[in-house]
């Protein structure tokens, strides 16, 4: 009897705290939920276990959960990989991953800490209610026990710190959402894609100077199922399709040269067609060949640099995208969030002409589909358009349901890769200038600035590699505007300070850069012109050339 009373008290507290708009009694909420899920065995299994757990999960000396959430990703994958015209791998995979979060405590302070941040397991692929529920049951039990441990651990850890006068809640209220969308499935012509990547890499035959040519094609269909004890039920799906090309060569002096272009779209049919990919491969291998002959950047340079959109996206993703996420700092730390802009709220972080919006609700841009678009995030919160930077000033962080100072509720950016915890993540991040300039105008500015500074040339970057190292870097000569490809350079101090102080203009040539990975994202950025950046020689060691020649081709 006593246990039952505590249990009821627990649910009552959870419910009064929840920001559920309608005050429905529990039975009708449950009935409504089951009505929505009808016909979807997985959703029904999740709801059945959710009901059972929220009513009865309770240990002696431990509070009942005030919140339980289940998220399932049903992932269908197809991967193929080719090298030198032959297939290395071709594989289909289907997996269902369940992530369970059980929270003990209350919204103000709860067990979401260390092992209490949830756990994952795999679920049966068959729609068998009992088999599904057994796995859900076990994981819920484990998550509740972990939450109990974590809650105790956290309360004791907090004793080390003096109490925060303005404490920030551990978990944000969120509206109840019911949105069950159709599931997506992986439909593609595997044979054709295998053929395409083989043909792409088969071009190695025409390029004896290039050492390695590999390509891969990866496709996935991810259906996400989300239910929580507040009554939210979401089902949505997305597709992800990526083709990657990798080419590597060595210059005569041993310097390693690489190119890795990739193409990402939601639907396989939106990827470039075979002919176009073959052309892109030729272009890539041509540039590798050219790079081998290109002069090395020996002396350091300080002056204007122009980034093409295909390079601008990487810079903006790293320097801006990575620093505007509202991530709660470690326990006891006073900062708002982590990253370079943690203390820059309402401060100018970019030039005045530059504004940044993250808009996951946008489906297309310039006729191109955006992989960063979604309706409801991985925490069951509807996507929102967020004005991140307005006229250079930081106005908003992207946040999920973990509040940070000044941002008590989610703006629909809590997103997760299959099986992992949700974190604030960009959706579609759009960079826009109030005074966009033409590419020709930017080029003219580049050479004019170089001349003004008494330099024979300025630098223009076409595309970047890891660590923002330029893969294709050109000297643009002030005398006649001709370009010269160079190699072996890196940027020095290409950081948020440079972005705020040295970025002088943006182009009118925004490029949609769809980015694959666990959480699909899109960056839309135009050309960027900096008035001063340092370009210096990379201090990578030169490797030895191959010990003996490559085998002769028989075909």
């Amino acid at each position, binding site marked *: 009897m006593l246990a039952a009373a505590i*249990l009821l008290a627990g649910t009552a507290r959870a419910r009064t705290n929840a920001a559920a708009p309608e005050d429905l009694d529990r039975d009708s909420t449950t009935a409504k939920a089951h009505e929505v899920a009808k016909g979807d065995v997985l959703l029904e299994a999740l709801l059945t276990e959710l009901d*059972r757990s929220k009513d009865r*999960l309770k240990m002696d000396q431990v509070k009942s959960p005030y919140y339980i959430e289940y998220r399932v990703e049903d992932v269908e994958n197809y991967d193929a990989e080719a090298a030198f015209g032959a*297939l290395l791998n071709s594989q*289909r995979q289907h997996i269902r991953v369940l992530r369970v979060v059980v929270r003990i405590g209350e919204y103000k302070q709860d067990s979401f800490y260390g092992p209490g941040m949830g756990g994952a397991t*795999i679920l049966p692929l068959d729609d068998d209610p*009992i088999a599904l529920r057994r796995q859900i049951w076990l994981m819920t*039990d484990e998550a509740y026990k972990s939450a109990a441990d974590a809650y105790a651990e956290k309360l004791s850890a907090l004793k080390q710190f003096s109490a925060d006068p303005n404490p920030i809640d551990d978990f944000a209220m969120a509206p109840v959402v019911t949105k069950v969308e159709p599931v997506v499935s992986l439909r593609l012509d595997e044979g054709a894609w295998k053929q395409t990547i083989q043909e792409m890499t088969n071009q190695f035959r025409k390029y004896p100077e290039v050492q390695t040519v590999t390509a891969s094609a990866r496709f996935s269909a991810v259906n996400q199922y989300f239910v929580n004890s507040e009554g939210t039920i979401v089902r949505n799906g997305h597709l992800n399709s990526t083709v990657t090309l990798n080419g590597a060569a060595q210059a005569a002096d041993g310097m390693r040269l690489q190119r890795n272009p990739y193409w990402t779209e939601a639907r396989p049919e939106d990827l470039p067609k075979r002919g176009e990919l073959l052309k892109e491969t030729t272009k890539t291998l041509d540039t590798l060949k050219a790079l081998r002959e290109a002069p090395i950047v020996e002396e350091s340079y300080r002056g204007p640099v122009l980034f093409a959109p295909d390079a601008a996206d990487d810079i903006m993703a790293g320097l801006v995208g990575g620093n505007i996420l509202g991530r709660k700092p470690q326990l006891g730390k006073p900062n708002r969030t982590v990253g370079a802009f943690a203390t820059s709220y309402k401060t100018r972080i970019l030039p005045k002409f530059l504004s940044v919006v993250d808009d996951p609700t946008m489906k297309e841009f310039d006729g191109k589909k955006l992989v960063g678009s979604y309706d409801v995030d991985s925490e069951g919160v509807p996507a929102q358009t967020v004005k991140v930077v307005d006229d250079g000033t930081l106005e908003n962080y992207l946040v999920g349901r973990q509040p940070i100072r000044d941002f008590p509720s989610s703006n629909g950016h809590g997103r997760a890769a299959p099986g992992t915890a949700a974190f604030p993540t960009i959706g579609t991040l759009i960079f826009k200038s109030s005074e966009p300039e033409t590419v020709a105008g930017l080029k003219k500015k580049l050479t004019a600035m170089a001349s003004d500074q008494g330099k024979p040339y300025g630098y223009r970057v076409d595309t970047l590699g890891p660590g923002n190292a330029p893969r294709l870097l050109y000297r643009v000569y002030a005398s006649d505007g001709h370009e010269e490809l160079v190699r072996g350079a890196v940027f020095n101090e290409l950081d948020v300070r440079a972005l705020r102080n040295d970025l002088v203009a943006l182009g009118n040539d925004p490029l949609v850069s769809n980015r694959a990975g666990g959480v699909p994202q899109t960056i839309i950025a135009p050309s960027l012109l900096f008035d001063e950046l340092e370009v210096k020689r990379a201090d990578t060691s030169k490797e030895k050339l191959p010990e*003996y020649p490559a085998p002769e081709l028989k075909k």
Partner: protein
Amino acid sequence: MQSLPVSFSTRRKFRVARTLARHGACFALAAQLISLPGLAAAGEEKDKPAAKGSADAMLQVMQGELNRAKTDLAKSDPAPYFLSYTVYDQDQIFIAGAYGALLSDTAVKRRNTDVTMRVGTPELDNTHGQSRSSGMTSGNLPLDGDPDATARVLWELTDREYKRAAPAYLNVKTNTAVKAEEEDKSPDFSKADPKTHVGEKLTPPPFDKKAWEDEVRRVSGAFRKYGDVYYATVILQVGSSNARMVSSEGAAIETPSASARLVMEAQTRADDGMDLLRVETFQAPAASGLPSEAVLMEKAAKMAADLKDLRKAPVAEPYAGPALLSGRAAAVFFHEVLGHRMEGHRQRDEEEGQTFTKKVGQEVLPKFLSVVDDPTVGEISGMKLAGTYEFDNEGTPAQKVVVIQDGVLKNFLMSRMPIKGFDKSNGHGRNQPGLMPTGRQGNLIVTSNQTVPERQLRQMLIDEAKKQGKPYGLYFDDIQGGFTLTTRSLPQAFQVLPVIVYKVYADGRPDELVRGVDIVGTPLAALTRIITTGDTQHVFNGVCGAESGSVPVSAVAPAMLFSEMEVQKRAHGRERPPILPAPGAEGGKDDATGVKP
């Protein structure tokens, strides 16, 4: 996304082993699937004399590229003196089920290669001591054998391997010059006669995937009835493999094989938090050779019944006294306690405990026991052996090695790494793809000429307990695996993990099932306490993990009576059994079989 249920289910069980592994060498034998099967395992194929200048296109491409590398790299300084290519083909199907539904259903097809290179001289080369891993570089090869692409990848890997091996050799030379002389001054690589052998290609046996998916569903579904079996899986792994090897010494070997393995696992948790596990493994050359569904269903029922009994069984107290090990338990015991210490490379590694290194010619076991490791045997007592192969991973033909004859230590399990007094491989150089081979066990077979009929052993255990004035002896019926430590910096200890253990009372009370016992001890002492053995050989098939990776092995032994064995309490988690009853195991609406709040 690569994590399949295999790794999920083994995670918890090896907590102890993993913890120890962080501190030193630790070798675990388990009945479960740990990773993909070793690839040198031979199937049932009939051997065919090697066709001269084999017609296998893949071997030809490998040989062509190997010859080019051999010739061209001979001009480099330092130059390699040995080079080999091994290409592994794998075509595997994994079907995993739990509680009547499939958890995973994957087909894996891949071809990967290990390029092995030795720079310097056989006396001293780049693989010496700690730099052993510099001898190998691995990568994926085209699936269809395209000659141009295959040769190109082999060339890339060979070049990359040379760039690791050459500096490693220079390091080894410097280190050897500045460090104190090693105790065992054996060369790094032994001489061998290169073999050519092409095993007959196998026609893959028909496999009805759909029917097996349904069977896995049904057999795993058998556990639905049991509310206290918290976790249960049935995993079927069926496939064919092929290993091709060519070396600069002239070896050219191709060994196709096929295997089917079915593993059933069921787990529960006692009220004190101890996880209890039952595992059954079946092995056959093809899925058709696995036990019938009826047999599997019976096993499932038995496993569930065992777990139910185990949950209620009392925890055993620490004890030292007479003990009877079933054949399977004795087999695992020998694999851990003796087998790992017979692996050749452990006799020269200065970090190793070298329990038996200097005991050749001495008595280490009771006179009535002999031990061989014989990978050439395919079957014993009607059971297929998992550790059977024709050639080891260094291309040496598998050999029967008499390790202990009438209690006297005779030999070690040798790869091509020589040790003092043993300068040749005896066909036990084994590895999982991607790792350098070391001396490993294949089929470790213990025989006895002091036997009694098995059914008499229980009475002998009682007699021995009475003789020693003990209230009971222990009977170890089944064992899940074990691990052992062989490094010098740690105690020379072993631990085997029994799952079904009974107290056999001297006063005639019925036997009592107990749980939570681990056999512990030190090898030299434990082995001399064997009094007598049963008259029937029993087989334990498993996967053994050590420095050179996971390889399939068998251990075979009769039941054994020990005058004394020491057991300790098993360390276990404190987490309670699930709070709510299992879905579907509820008689009425939600009637609890779990623990109530």
